[in-house]
């Protein structure tokens, strides 16, 4: 029961901060709300027995990515708000109709999916929670070794690409 209460409180925080991120005019404020959102998501990961991922979330998202965003916001240095003029061709009813259809489909899937949602098996409940890092590491270095290496190559390529893009001239 405590877990359910914590889940709903965290969900409310996550959704509220997400709405604030999208709706705030000031970009710096939006980035700061994004930090709070990521921290709430990390707390949710702890609740869902993914402690290692919670740590990774705080380090990578709340630490790295958000600092990157803040740097770019400061560098870009808005002289005028970019949302002043409106583009009338964007208010297309076809787009809204398609969006409504997709959301309806999602709602139907959720409605059918949530009827028979099984609860977690209590017998093994402590297993994944207690030995989280060991389990993740074991999976990552045995079954998923090749995707892991591919991800590391992707990060290397992204790093080189970002440096080349940000250089003034080659």
């Amino acid at each position, binding site marked *: 029961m405590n877990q359910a209460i914590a889940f709903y409180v965290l969900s409310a925080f996550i*959704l509220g901060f997400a709405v604030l991120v999208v709706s705030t005019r000031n*970009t710096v404020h939006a980035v700061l709300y994004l930090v709070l959102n990521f921290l709430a998501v990390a707390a949710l990961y702890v609740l*869902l027995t*993914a402690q290692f991922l919670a740590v990774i979330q705080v380090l990578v998202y709340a630490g790295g990515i958000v600092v990157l965003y803040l740097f770019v916001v400061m560098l870009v240095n808005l002289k005028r708000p970019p949302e002043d003029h409106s583009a009338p061709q964007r208010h297309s009813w076809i787009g809204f109709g398609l969006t409504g259809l997709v959301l309806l489909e999602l709602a139907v899937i959720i409605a059918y999916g949530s009827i028979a949602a099984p609860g977690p098996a209590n017998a093994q409940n402590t297993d994944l929670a207690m030995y989280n890092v060991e389990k993740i590491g074991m999976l990552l270095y045995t079954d998923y070794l090749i995707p892991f290496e591919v991800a590391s190559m992707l990060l290397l390529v992204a790093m080189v690409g970002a440096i080349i893009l940000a250089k003034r001239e080659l």
Partner: protein
Amino acid sequence: MLLSTALFIIGVLGVMLRRNIIVIFMSIELILNAVNINLIAFSYQLQNGIGQVFAIFVIAVAAAEAAVGLGIILAFYRNKETINIDEMSVMRW
């Protein structure tokens, strides 16, 4: 599931409705976060660690995407002095 879907929808709305490209990138991060929540929720339901492994991959890809995307924004801003996507309609200049 519902939380993940709602966060995903907020992210998609952010991508569609905002004109500031940095806010659009943040909305993409929200979408990836929604995917991560879904993966971890299923990992918890099924007591299976594979979902968390995939969430790690999603985080790695999100970090790479953020780095490259923000590099592109900086390069573009240096050339065009704008971050409004309505003015970003040229492929060459």
